[in-house]
């Protein structure tokens, strides 16, 4: 387990990092954040860059702060920083809950929020929560700054719309609207493993009627996706077990090209997506009712 030789640079500012990216062949440079996905690939020699550009010395890319209507999370903030953040705990319990589902203490202590977004693992929790919440991803590149909607950021397996030469600098997570009920659940072999399938549900109750629905399934196909057909079944209706079942069936049926691998067959994933959709909707409604909405 030894990486193939590369050179290493750890500039202290974003401008210097961008300059290094623009001076080198983008195919030969790999950006290093927490290393919790990239280092295994280097150790197994599945990645063989010429130059490793370490962002972890760039202070301006860390930190978690409040911005109008949401949280601004520096791309280099670690999952541990999120876990320890009273601000996140208070403002976005869904984002907090998803954080604790990721890996083990060792992994969360180093792995960054931005790294999970750029890695775009289809079974990862953060991209799913980013899609459900309508997060914005901020990138800096030679052409300046760009703000990308989560739904446009995640393309497919391990692929985002980030251009070579761009650095993800910030993730903007909108607050949960007052009265929002939410749930994130997954089936994994053990706590901390990547999900075989997972689901996120969000909704509000207005006079007992479901509004602002979000149903997102992850781990089941090439990326985390919203399921608008299931959302439409519930929108404007009173929540009921029969409707949750219908929404679950709609999710199962509409799942495109489910993953089929050693962990689970495509059919099993389809059924899991159905079950987790029902469970997360049920829990989200309980939370919405509990919040007096």
């Amino acid at each position, binding site marked *: 387990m*030894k990486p193939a030789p590369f050179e290493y640079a750890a500039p202290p500012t974003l401008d210097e990092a961008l300059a290094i990216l623009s001076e080198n062949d983008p195919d030969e440079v790999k950006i290093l954040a927490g290393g919790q996905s990239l280092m295994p690939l280097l150790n197994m020699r599945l990645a063989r860059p010429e130059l490793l550009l370490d962002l972890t010395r760039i202070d301006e890319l860390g930190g978690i702060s409040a911005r109008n209507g949401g949280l601004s999370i520096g791309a280099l903030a670690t999952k541990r920083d999120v876990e320890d953040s009273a601000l996140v705990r208070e403002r976005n319990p869904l984002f907090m809950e998803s954080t604790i589902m990721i890996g083990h203490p060792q992994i969360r202590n180093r792995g960054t929020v931005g790294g999970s977004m750029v890695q775009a693992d289809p079974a990862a929790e953060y991209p799913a929560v980013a899609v459900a919440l309508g997060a914005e991803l901020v990138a800096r590149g030679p052409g300046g700054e760009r703000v990308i909607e989560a739904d446009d950021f995640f393309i497919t397996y391990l692929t985002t719309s980030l251009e070579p030469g761009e650095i993800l600098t910030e993730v903007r997570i909108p607050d949960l609207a007052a009265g929002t009920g939410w749930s994130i659940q997954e089936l994994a072999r053990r706590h901390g493993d990547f999900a075989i399938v997972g689901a996120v549900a969000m909704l509000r109750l207005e006079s007992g009627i479901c509004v602002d629905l979000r149903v997102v399934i992850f781990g089941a196909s090439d990326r985390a996706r919203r399921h608008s057909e299931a959302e439409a079944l519930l929108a404007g209706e009173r929540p009921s077990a029969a409707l949750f079942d219908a929404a679950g069936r709609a999710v199962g049926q509409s799942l495109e090209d489910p993953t089929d691998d050693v962990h689970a067959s495509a059919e099993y994933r389809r059924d899991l997506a159905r079950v987790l959709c029902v469970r997360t909707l049920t829990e989200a409604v309980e939370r919405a009712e509990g919040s007096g909405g």
Partner: protein
Amino acid sequence: MSKRHVTTTIDGEGREFLCEDWQTLLDVLRDVLMKTGTKEGCGTGDCGACSVLLDGRLVCSCLMLAAEAEGRVIETVEGMAEGDRLHPLQQHFLQEAALQCGICTPGFLVAARALLAQNPDPSEREVRFWLAGNLCRCTGYDKIVRAVLAAAAEMRGAEA
């Protein structure tokens, strides 16, 4: 290519070393500094045998470059005993027979130490969740969990 010069603190001592840019901290600990207490199980973050503390935070030394250690404080299993006096965690691992082959033990000790530093009175559940990043193929974990709880109780007693 010339070697990189890195200045760190390891187990309480200022240490300088030369390394290649692509060497992991684990490889430098074991092959350059001959501190072989820290083990390699997988090299992919799955087993926790290589666990060390980086500025007080538990990390996998196989998933970190030695170059990243510049200016940082590293603590390994080798800094836990004081001379011949074992750390309470080490003592209880022996007493509870919380090891067989022993390759996972340094990682568990360092991980457990990190837990007790932030939570001196963990529940069994908290111990199990915290140690989920450390794999043991021999013991079945029960004895490890018991050893950690016993050490925690002893350390609380010593404080009181």
